[in-house]
């Protein structure tokens, strides 16, 4: 049996990660071509310096307040809580941020870092287009050149976000290789970076990639959990019993989870894209059904075949349609500090409609996966227990997808 002190020591150790080489247990690290090793070290040192720089932090706080619109509310969804008949549900409203999702917390931070490092050109990968839009937005604001790599398949599915990026002045490059989706966009962005590394800053959109990206993106997103923790203490006078967030690459989930890691009474649930169901094989749930491997600069759980080839993922939500996951989640899974589950496309759609009609909030399909698990968990809990859900994005971008699935033409 693990002692209280043992658990506390383990939790304290979790918040100290990654180690100097970017490892979370056996995960993470820096698996890239040699050309990028020097630039990654330069980035790590710059980030280390500015993370402790009061002037940098003050500018970041100001931008988050005045440009992003933080703090985002923590909203008590009283009617939905009553209908589910169990725990009190609080929604962390990242959907109310500028550009409509949590992605902007990170792009504001990385763009500030790029400016201080003297890089005039930024590149990004995007799946659904949310991170691409958030990158194009900060590039427009700072007058930086911006190139966004997006899979040809995703460009077809997300025409409106492609146009948004172009309005903001970004060049959107269609990626025709491999499965023509997010993972291939990431490959292509890496190829651009290795070619233009002298003047280019690569804004990775999630807590994956080579060290220091998983730690740096987490730190920029941890504002979500810091605010939520203070807000729930102010509103309810106590910590929540559990946190729930969807996990694609995992940046919104880590952002919420990380500031609670030392609060041993707080359970954590990451919800992956279950697609047509785990047993169908058509899903995007590497933590639930994958195994460890190396892709995109880090060791983590992957969707792969017996030859080590990365396999295609399936999710109704483009933002979850990724075969890997941030290495810190891999370690939180192995240590048991967080639990990872999956919600199917159908379950997510049901939750999408339920929240829309019960609370007047249209959630992103990604966030709807977290809501789908909430529908299962909340009724099993007592009425005085508390759940915090990361409502990581708004559903405007998904209206066409939902309508099409229901046979409606807009």
């Amino acid at each position, binding site marked *: 049996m693990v002692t209280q002190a043992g658990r506390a020591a383990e939790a304290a150790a979790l918040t100290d990660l990654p180690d100097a*080489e970017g490892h979370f247990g056996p995960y993470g*690290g*820096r*698996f*890239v*071509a*040699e*050309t*990028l*090793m*020097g*630039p990654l070290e330069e980035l790590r040192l710059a980030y280390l310096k500015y993370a402790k720089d009061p002037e940098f932090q003050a500018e970041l706080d100001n931008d988050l307040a005045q440009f992003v619109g933080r703090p985002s509310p923590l909203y008590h969804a009283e009617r939905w809580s009553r209908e589910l008949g169990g725990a009190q549900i609080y929604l962390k409203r990242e959907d109310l941020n500028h550009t409509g999702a949590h992605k902007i917390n990170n792009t504001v931070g990385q763009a500030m870092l790029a400016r201080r490092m003297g890089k005039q050109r930024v590149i990004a990968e995007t799946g659904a287009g949310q991170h691409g839009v958030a990158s194009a937005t900060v590039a427009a604001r700072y007058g930086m050149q911006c190139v966004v790599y997006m899979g040809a398949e995703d460009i077809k599915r997300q025409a409106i976000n492609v146009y948004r990026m172009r309005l903001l002045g970004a060049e959107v490059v269609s990626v025709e*290789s*491999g499965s023509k989706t997010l*993972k*291939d966009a990431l*490959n292509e962005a*890496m*190829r651009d970076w*290795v*070619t*233009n*590394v*002298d003047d280019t800053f690569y804004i990775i959109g999630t807590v994956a990639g080579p060290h220091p990206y998983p730690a740096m993106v987490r730190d920029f997103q941890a504002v979500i959990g810091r605010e939520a923790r203070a807000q729930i203490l102010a509103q309810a006078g106590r910590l929540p019993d559990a946190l729930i967030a969807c996990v694609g690459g995992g940046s919104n989930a880590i952002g919420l989870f990380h500031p609670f890691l030392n609060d041993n009474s707080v359970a954590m649930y990451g919800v992956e894209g279950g697609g047509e169901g785990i047993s169908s094989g058509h899903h995007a749930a590497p933590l639930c059904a994958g195994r*460890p*491997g*190396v*892709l*995109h*600069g880090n*060791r983590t759980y*992957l969707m*792969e075949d*017996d*030859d*080590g*080839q*990365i*396999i295609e993922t399936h999710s109704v939500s483009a933002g979850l349609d990724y075969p890997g996951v941030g290495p810190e989640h891999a370690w939180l899974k192995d240590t048991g500090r967080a639990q990872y589950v999956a919600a199917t496309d159908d379950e997510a759609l049901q939750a999408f409609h339920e929240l829309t009609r019960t609370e007047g909030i249209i959630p992103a399909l990604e966030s709807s996966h977290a809501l789908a698990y909430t529908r299962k968990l909340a009724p099993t809990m007592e009425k005085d227990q508390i759940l915090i859900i990361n409502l990581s994005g708004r559903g405007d971008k998904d209206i066409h997808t939902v309508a099409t699935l229901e046979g409606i033409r807009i």
Partner: protein
Amino acid sequence: MSRIAGRFRDLRSQGRTALIPYITAGDPQPTVTVPLMHALVEAGADLLELGVPFSDPMADGPTIQAACERALVHHVGLHNVLDMVRSFRDRDNDTPVVLMGYLNPIEVMGYDKFAAAAREAGVDGVLTVDLPPEEGHDLVAALKSRQLDPIFLAAPTSSDQRIQQMSASGSGFLYYVSFKGVTGANRLDVQAVKDKLVQIRASTELPVGVGFGIRDAETAAQVAAFSDAVVVGSALVNRVAALADKPDAIVAQAPQVIAEMRAAMDAMDAKGSVAAAN
């Protein structure tokens, strides 16, 4: 002494520079690979680099990406590549073979199991594009325990300290990536490579090969003038791609580009040895 070290020793004593063609195993179909390997040796290859197809070749340009995709249509995995090397060894026990690829297929097979199987198949060296020495400790140990050479890539951005680290962990030869970019790009600056090689040689005793951007006989000869080996990938794979719908013609025609490079390099090496003798 490993087959790779022996080959470099022999070439050095002859005053010749090694020519190392790269092909992706299974491109455009598995039956082409072993006959093509033999044909490349006949055309003048001193070592062979055999690419292990991977679904996400992050360090490769469009030419080798497409080669991987053609091979993966036939589900060519690491097991199949080892079978090809074993088959190649039926007729050629002298030419060193280096596997080049990404870490994940090796990770899935398991380092020790892979090293044993590679040794048994007749592989001599392993070059893993996305495995820098910092992360390579376990794989290097597994390879060395089976007398396989771990080959590292050095880049224009590599510090002296990193080159020393690669030199200590690696063996066989050191592969210098001639520019910042992906395979097959047209960015080769011969003078810049020459300057960097002076710096690299101060930090390693290993033979130094140069790859990325060697596109024709002229560039091969220019680079041969100051390197120990010239690695040719995309220029050859482009010939394979052009003949992809006529696989019978690949073995006869694709190696011509290697023969042309061999001739130009030998002329350069001969000129160099005359100059040295004078």
